[in-house]
């Protein structure tokens, strides 16, 4: 190996290492209240770039490059940008521009899986001098009829679920494949973060109180790696929302002359196994 090449690899490693570091704990939220409604109805979205475990600080979003829905019948992709509207999102520590979207019932009536994809504008992390762009997916199922939840969406980077993201019990296990350009990414760096604050979607805000207290900072976002096949496996110890982010896996490494971290995010909703009213189980 030549000195020049070794030097380049060292610099590249340092640069991309910093990208991954800086991208930690930033999470693009794509939030709805319920990913498994029994019947299709209008859907309220909150698109917030934030730190879900600590309930902020929230980062300013520019208008997304793309926000789309693959309908339950899978035959068409619907551009949802017309429904986006900027809002000021109140997180624990600050207020910042986020987006809301009201998706009409007409687009949500069909039974099955509705796949939502967000491609945000790259966010400039000014202090680090780099950009972060998190391609984010959320899957809503109407009625319980399965559809294309496991299908990749052809994104530059994405997390392909191997379990239904909308049908998970507390204590269950979730599996997914990290993809870049449609191919698995072996040993991809993955962060998992719990949405630790209530979301008041009507007030565009996080609740002040945290659901759980972390014993130490490294619990805020759990770090792991995909395996040699790009598969990431995680437990789901608590009901609510879990975000999965695979960091800096895109082929595009620069934006406007600065390093770019293209991350893939998938959100998973988890429910408690609440006893039925007539179950006879004390609760």
């Amino acid at each position, binding site marked *: 190996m030549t000195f020049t090449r070794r030097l380049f690899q060292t610099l590249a490693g340092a640069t991309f290492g910093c990208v991954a570091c800086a991208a930690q704990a930033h999470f693009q939220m794509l939030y709805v209240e319920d990913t498994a409604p*029994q*019947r299709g109805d209008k859907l309220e979205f909150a698109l917030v770039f934030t730190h879900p475990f600590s309930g902020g600080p929230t980062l300013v979003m520019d208008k997304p490059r793309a926000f789309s829905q693959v309908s339950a019948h899978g035959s068409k992709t619907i551009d949802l940008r017309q429904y986006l509207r900027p809002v000021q999102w109140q997180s624990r520590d600050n207020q910042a521009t986020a987006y809301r979207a009201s998706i009409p019932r007409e687009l949500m009536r069909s039974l099955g899986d509705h796949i939502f994809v967000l491609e945000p504008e790259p966010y400039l992390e000014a202090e680090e001098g780099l950009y972060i762009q998190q391609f984010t997916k959320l899957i809503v199922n109407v009625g319980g*009829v399965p559809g294309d939840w496991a299908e990749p969406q052809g994104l530059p980077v994405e997390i392909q679920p191997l379990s239904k993201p909308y049908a998970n019990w507390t204590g269950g296990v979730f599996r997914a494949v990290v993809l870049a350009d449609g191919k698995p990414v072996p040993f991809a760096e993955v962060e998992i973060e719990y949405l630790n604050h209530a979301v008041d979607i009507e007030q565009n805000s996080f609740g002040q109180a945290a659901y759980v207290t972390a014993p130490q900072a490294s619990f805020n976002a759990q770090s792991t790696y995909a395996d040699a096949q790009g598969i990431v496996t995680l437990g789901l110890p608590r009901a609510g929302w879990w975000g999965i982010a695979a960091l800096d896996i895109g082929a595009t490494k620069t934006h406007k002359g600065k390093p770019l971290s293209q991350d893939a995010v998938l959100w998973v909703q988890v429910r408690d196994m609440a006893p039925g009213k007539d179950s006879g189980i004390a609760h």
Partner: protein
Amino acid sequence: MKPLGPTRLILMTAALSCCQAAFAHGPVFDCYLEHDDQVKCEAGYPDGSSAVGRKIRVQDARNKLLLEGSIGADNTYTFQAPAGDYTVLFLGGDNHDATIQSADISR
């Protein structure tokens, strides 16, 4: 006691119509109004089984048969909304029936 909403009623109807052993494969069925008072109904099963070819019956308030058809290749069946109250019955096979009342069908 909190009154049951239309969604719960639909699902309860479907659940009660199923034999218990086959409950995991009970049908999911819903209808909504499209343009020109066309009613579009969708059917499916939680295990992904196809509902294509399954019968649909539309009955008036006295259970008189108004229309009969089959679920198409896209898992839907569309018909002109009849005048007055009516019921749409999905015959899901193996007693997997589900019904929806016209009052629960909206845009």
